């Protein structure tokens, strides 16, 4: 569990998207455990309630990350974690346009709009801030049936670098993690199939999947003052996937 002695986020406000499940949930819980006052945002109200079950002082907003309410929720946060994301599996030649557009809207445009709002508020107030985007090993490589996802995560990687460059003069850091296969709802079906799970495991040098908490550890490090000289970086948390 979280080292309880850590209070890296004491007095800070953090907005975490995708906080109802998986990586976003682990991030929200860890930030709260380390002293942040957390606002969790997700489509799933039930999932949000479960995330913040035993946490006092946390808030949650059950809205679509693409909505105006989501944009409004950015106000006053010191930390923004863009973890909401979707993976729609379609063969390239049959990939429907609406699935392509939905993927770009959730995985790229929502982080872009939230980052814009976050940056605007901090530049106006003259205060520093930290953004962490959840990219993927597919920001660097490809997997079959994931064309829209791969494009969106590669776009998010460049959004991370380019906004880091633009916002550095304003004391706003922007970083990302690139998770490998992590045990969350996103790939539950794949992991439940013994054959597919074994093949995936075989491809991972550490020979196991990541936990959401392992992703949260990296994300919270990048968001924390310990990473004060890190900006524009993308940290693979992938059990060695990208070494092959």
């Amino acid at each position, binding site marked *: 569990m979280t080292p309880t002695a850590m209070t890296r986020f004491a007095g800070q406000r953090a907005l975490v998207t995708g906080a109802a499940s998986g990586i976003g949930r682990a991030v929200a819980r860890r930030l709260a455990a380390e002293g942040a006052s957390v606002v969790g945002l997700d489509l799933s109200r039930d999932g949000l309630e479960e995330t913040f079950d035993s946490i006092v002082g946390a808030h949650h907003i059950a809205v679509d990350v693409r909505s105006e309410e989501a944009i409004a929720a950015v106000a006053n946060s010191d930390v923004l974690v863009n973890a909401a994301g979707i993976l729609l599996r379609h*063969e*390239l*030649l049959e*990939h429907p*346009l609406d699935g*392509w*557009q939905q993927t*770009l809207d959730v995985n*790229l*445009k929502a982080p*872009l*709009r939230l*980052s*814009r709002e976050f*940056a*605007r508020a901090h*530049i106006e107030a003259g205060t520093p801030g930290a953004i962490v985007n959840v990219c993927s090993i*597919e*920001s660097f*490589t*490809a*997997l*079959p*049936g*994931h*064309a*829209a996802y*791969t*494009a*969106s*995560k*590669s*776009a*998010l*990687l*460049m*959004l991370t*670098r*380019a*906004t*880091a*460059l*633009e*916002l550095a003069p304003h004391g706003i850091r922007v970083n990302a993690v690139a998770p490998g296969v992590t045990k969350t709802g996103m790939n539950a079906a794949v992991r439940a199939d013994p054959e597919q799970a074994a093949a995936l495991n075989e491809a991972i040098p550490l020979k196991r999947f990541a936990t959401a908490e392992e992703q949260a550890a990296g994300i919270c490090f990048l968001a924390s003052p310990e990473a004060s000289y890190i900006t*524009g970086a993308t940290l693979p948390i992938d059990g060695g996937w990208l070494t092959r």
Partner: protein
Amino acid sequence: MSAPVAIVTGTSRGIGQGIAARLTAAGTRVFGVSRTQGEAVQLQCDLAKPDAPRQVLADALEVCGRVDALVNNAGLLLEGNCWEQQEEDVDAMVALNLTTPFLLSQAVAAHWVKEGQAGTIVNVCSIESQVGWSDPPQAAYAATKGGLLGLTRAQALELAPHGIRVVAVGPGPIATGMTPDTPELEKAIPLGGRPGTPEDVGDVVAFLLSEAARYVTGEIVYVDGGYLLR
């Protein structure tokens, strides 16, 4: 056999015009598509319209009888601070820089698979598929070019079993309407201290489309005079 045919988008000026010129010189018949008129434009249409990609393929087949290559060159750069840029500008760049290549490649690749024919796609990315550019600021543009590189990899992986190669070029600052030449820019280019020309890019595209590049797929070749070395 008749000359190979390449659909090239955005040929009315700039890099697209240079690509069309070099491919033509290499013996390829170019079917140029652009929103505005130009010497190398065979079809005038707004590529960001959802039905444009199918129309482009149908017209190219009708006019040229065959299609062997596709160069997704048309692109839109709208500058703006990442904390101020308007929604419409972001949407316009996502539409033309990402969704148009997605749809046009899908239409052309489906045609090749149906015909049992090989083919090659070149996506014109940018050094901004790799690094940011802040003077003037343009983070959303960089994001679309990063996405186009990701799309290149995804297309290359899935289309390889069909004998279809998908590759990218990443131009650095090129002397076109999009990038004005300045002394600072010249200092930033290790090779010759000059911005690139559309023909510099066209020659690399011609190589990537040629038989000489038959074992290359999913890769990007930066054409930047060493800019990314700095």
